[in-house]
Structures are given as C-alpha cells and as structure tokens.
C-alpha cells in the first residue's frame, strides 16, 4: 500500500466506539477531504515527499519481532547511564522491557479508552490542518502515556524507536507525556535502524508541562537512511515551566520535525536548539511554531545547518504573538553553511505580532566557508582540510554546547568528530 492509498483504508480501521472522540472524527473527515500535501501548500513548499510516495508499505501488524531483552537495549551504543529505556520496536510498545520506577508511570492505552481530551488538547488550527497529524490520529489505535509524578527530579528517560522489520513498514507512534507540577526531567527520542527494508514513521506527540515543570528534550536522528520520519510534536506549557529542545539530525534521508509550542499560561520559557547536517540527497526539514498566547513568556530558537553534497535543508520558524501576550520576548537565529554547490537551504522566518509591548528578533544567514578564515589558518601551517574541519566544528559546537545532557552531548560530538574537528 502506498502512502496516498493508506487513507482509502481508513474506514476499515475506523470503529464506532471512537466517534465520541472529537479529534478522531475531525481527522477522519480531514483525510476524506484532503490529499497528500504538495509544493502548492506553503508549509510543504520545499518538502517533497517523493522519497516516500512510491514505497509499498504494509501497515505495521502483528509481525514477529525478534526477542529483545532489557540488557540488549542497554548494550546499544551511546545509551546514557541511569536512564530508563522505553522501547518501541517497529511501532510496537514493549512494556515488558521497561524497568519500573515509581517516580513515573508509563502505559499504553487504547485510543477508545482515553479520557484526557481536554479543551487544550489541540489548541491550534495549525496542527489540525496538518495531513500527517490527522493521518496519525486516524491510524494510531493506541497511545503511549508517560506521566512524571509531581515533585520528582533528575529523571532520565530514553524513548528508543527501533526499526526492525522484514517488510516495508509504516508506523504511527502516538505519545503523550505529562510532567506534573515541580518536576525536572530529561527525555530523549532516539531513532535507530536495524532494518534493511524501508520504514516510515509518522509520529505525533503531545508534551504537557504543568506548573514549574522543567523538561530538557532531545530528538536524535543519526544516519537514518531507510528510516524516514515525520515528527509532529505539540508542547503545551503552563505557568513557570521551562522547555528546552535539542534536535540533532545527521545524514538522514528524510526528516521533518515540526515543533509547536503553546504558552498556555504566563511566565513560561522555551529554548529550541537544533543542529542538522545533510549529506547525499538528504532532506531535513525543521518547522517551528511558537504561539505566545499569554503574557510574560520567553522563547528563543537557535538552529544551525551544514548542508553537504546534494542535500536540502529547510528552516521555517514561525512566531505568533497573540494580542493578549504583552511583555513577550521571542528570538530566533538560523545559520547555515553550504559546503557544495548543489546543496540547498530554504530558510524563512515568520513573525506575526498582535501585541504592542513585545521584543522580537530574527536573524538568518546562509553562506559558504569563509576563505579569509581558511587562509589565515593555512598561513599558520594548518592544512586546508583541517582548517575546514575546524571551522565546521566551531560552527556545530555553538549549538551542541547548549545540549545539557552531558552523555548525549558527548556521544553526538564523538559521532561527528569523524567529519569535523581534529
């Protein structure tokens, strides 16, 4: 089944007992009335689905998955210590492999049993008009629910998305994370491919930060050549919460990360960091929407891209300041380096400001490696190749140094040190 045929089969999955969920009936209607997005859609202008469109998928079913033990998981490279692993193997949540910790709860629920569809659940039209959000809603029959219990600190959780399937697989992970009041956690989404066949993951995740919750969040997409993925992630921030995202995308065929941050209450803060490095024909798409709905919130985006070979990078950062959101501070920086003539970057800031008393700024710059800098280093005896690597390292480290989870940061640095640095 090809991507554009999947929705034809929605009626098979669609069950009467789900119609009470508003979002689900919305999504099913949406899919009936809309086709796959193409370049005519402003949000998909440069994001071609051509690398996914023609793959013949099976929807993930009860395919036999080879046996994993919890120990096996911890033996995978670069897994940080003292971290709870939540494995999702070829789209299947493996609860039996999780070490129980009373500071949080994790369970998988049938969509039909959900009862948390609050009015804030999808506070924004942007996500409701997103084809892949709707596709996820219609296809995900289960939702993984992680709850960090109130007044707990220093929690480290790693969601491990492992692709391991004999046939071309389409998966729809759906994850809801809630940090209760006064919590402090590090949570990472790491994608790993052990499969030779194609996998396409269409993830939707909702992350809720309650009062005074601090979340350091990571997405690690490293060498995913037949693990293509779209991640729609909604972040809802309540009073005094702080969200930091750290996204690392490296040499992966097709990635679209769409983060939507909603400041639902005052005095919340979001820092979004991203480093993306494209090679070959990679397409790496970073979409951001920050909605300043309430006053006195702060947001800052720092995204840097290094595009090599024939790769394409996209940065689209939207900041929307609602009329009520006075004293908003919202900043954005995107810098890109192109190392070949056929590499491309499309960068676009979108600021919509409806309040008077705000501070907003954005800066975008795309360039090539500075010849003056190269010559300066060469004139000190450093070879051109090493000078180039040193400049790329400096460029990348500016973002990586912001990644606060030391083990992850160090593993990413050693990961790219083959290409960069000395």
């Amino acid at each position: 089944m090809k991507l554009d045929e999947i929705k034809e089969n929605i009626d098979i999955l669609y069950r009467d007992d789900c119609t009470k969920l508003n979002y689900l009936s919305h999504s099913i209607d949406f899919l009936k009335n809309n086709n796959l997005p193409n370049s005519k859609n402003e949000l998909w202008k440069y994001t071609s689905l051509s690398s996914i469109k023609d793959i013949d998928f099976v929807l993930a079913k009860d395919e036999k998955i080879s046996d994993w033990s919890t120990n096996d998981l911890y033996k995978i490279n670069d897994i940080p210590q003292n971290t709870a692993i939540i494995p999702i193997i070829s789209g299947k949540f493996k609860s039996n492999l999780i070490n129980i910790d009373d500071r949080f709860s994790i369970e998988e629920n049938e969509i039909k049993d959900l009862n948390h569809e609050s009015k804030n659940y999808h506070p924004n039209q942007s996500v409701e008009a997103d084809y892949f959000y709707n596709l996820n809603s219609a296809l995900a029959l289960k939702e993984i629910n992680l709850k960090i219990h109130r007044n707990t600190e220093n929690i480290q959780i790693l969601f491990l998305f492992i692709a391991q399937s004999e046939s071309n697989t389409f998966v729809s992970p759906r994850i809801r994370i809630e940090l209760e009041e006064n919590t402090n956690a590090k949570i990472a989404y790491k994608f790993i491919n052990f499969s030779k066949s194609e996998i396409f993951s269409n993830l939707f995740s909702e992350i809720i930060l309650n009062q005074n919750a601090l979340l350091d969040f990571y997405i690690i997409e490293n060498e995913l050549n037949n693990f293509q993925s779209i991640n729609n992630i909604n972040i809802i921030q309540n009073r005094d919460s702080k969200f930091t995202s750290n996204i690392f995308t490296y040499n992966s065929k097709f990635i679209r990360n769409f983060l939507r941050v909603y400041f639902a209450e005052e005095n919340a803060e979001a820092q979004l960091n991203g480093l993306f490095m494209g090679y070959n024909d990679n397409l790496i798409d970073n979409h951001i929407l920050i909605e300043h709905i309430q006053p006195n919130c702060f947001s800052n985006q720092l995204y840097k891209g290094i595009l090599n070979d024939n790769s394409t990078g996209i940065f689209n950062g939207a900041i929307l300041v609602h009329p009520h959101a006075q004293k908003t501070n919202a900043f954005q920086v995107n810098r890109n380096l192109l190392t070949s003539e056929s590499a491309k970057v499309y960068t676009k800031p979108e600021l919509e400001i409806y309040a008077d008393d705000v501070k907003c700024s954005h800066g975008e710059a795309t360039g090539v490696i500075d010849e003056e800098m190269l010559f300066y280093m060469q004139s000190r005896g450093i070879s051109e190749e090493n000078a180039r690597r040193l400049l790329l390292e400096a460029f990348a480290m500016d973002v990586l140094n912001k990644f606060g989870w030391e083990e992850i940061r160090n593993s990413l640095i050693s990961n790219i040190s083959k290409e960069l640095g000395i």
Partner: protein
Amino acid sequence: MSLLKITNLKAGIEEKEILHGINLEINPGEVHAIMGPNGSGKTTLASVLTGKKEIKVFDGNVEFEGKNLLELAPEERARLGLFLAFQYPVEIPGVSNANFLRLALNEKRKYQGLDPIEPAQFFKLLREKAKIAKMDASFLNRGLNEGFSGGEKKRNEIFQMIMLEPKLAILDETDSGLDIDALKIVAEGVNQMRDPQRSFLIITHYQRLLDYIVPDFVHVLYNGKIVMSGTKELALELEAKGYDWIKEEFATN
C-alpha cells in the same frame, strides 16, 4: 645561502599588475624594513609571499632556502618557517586561540618528523610565551581574535609568531593603529626573537616602529618597485622629507 631571494617578481590581482619587478635578498639574521606610501604594493608583496590565492604571479621567482616558494601551498610555506603577521587578522569565533595554536604547532612538528606536543607541555609553553606578548591567559580559551580590540589582535599575531618560531617573519603594518604602549610590546616581542638564524621583513608606512626595531636595511617601495635601498638612516630621511619627496623623484617611473 640567502634565506629569501626575490627575483624580478611581477604580480597583481586579476589582470592588474601591482608589483612590477621586485628584487630583494634577505640573509639569515637580517632585519629588513620596507616602507612606502599607501598603494605602493606593500600588502601585495606580503600576500604573494604567503600564498594568498587571489594574487597572481606574472613573472619572476621567489626562493626560500633554495626552494621555489611560489609553487607551495600556504600551509607548506608556513611549515618551512614563513610567518605573516596580518595587517587585519580575522576573527574566528568558536575556534579557541589555544586549540588553533596547538594544531598549528603540531602540523609543523609533524612536517619536521616530530611527535605531537604533550598537552601539559603545550599549555606550559603557551603560558610562558603569552607573558612575553603581554597576553592575558584568559585570552587563550576565547575564540580566535573574537571580540579582540585592534591592539589585542596585533599582539596576538606577535604571540603566534613567538609560539611558532618562524625563520622569516613578515610584519604587515603591524604598527598601524597601535598606541605607543602596544607598539613597544610588539617591538619587544620581535627583539626577543632576533637571533642569527631568524630574519624579519617589517612592512610599515611610518618610521616610528623602526625606533624600537632597528633594521639592518631599509627599502622604499613605490609604484610596485623598490626605488631606493639603504640603512636605517634612510627611514629617518623619509620621515623628515615625507613620501612626497619619493613621489616627485620617481613620478615618471
């Protein structure tokens, strides 16, 4: 054998010839000064010697210890012992002064067949030499020239020179824009480095620096040619009479 021998060097940018046949020989241990008005080709001369891509050589040759310098890459020239203190050093954010110098030093050592310097030994050396250039140790971990004032950048050039111990150091208008204190620091750095095996080519617009670094020879560059050569007294004469004197004398050339 001379350290540097420039013979009938004609060079410029794109099709425009700026240097119209330079002849200059520098022996080990000598300090040469090249003076000249703006636009006479001083920086072009420094650039062609260090191998800047934009500079085209139309004729002539340059030998460094008997090797054809012009066919070597900039980094190879540096490893042989050529150093340029830039007139306008670039800022390279994110690359620390210390890392940069360690890499430069190790590349040179590798060329000489030596092992990389031990980190502890390197940092000891770094701190010792920083004192000579009056560089605060905190500079070393900052980005290369990042946010440095003009004077700090020039001092950093001298500091790098001290670290890399070149055979020939070219100072391209290192004195321009420096106050007297910074000028003295630069001169002190150079004077401490003077020895019978090391040579200097000091390019300057003003005589002032030569009060502190006393040259063995002074050359006047005008319209892409060395029009006069002499000893340090020539610099004083130039200072007294001004460049108009040269311009009038050699206007027809």
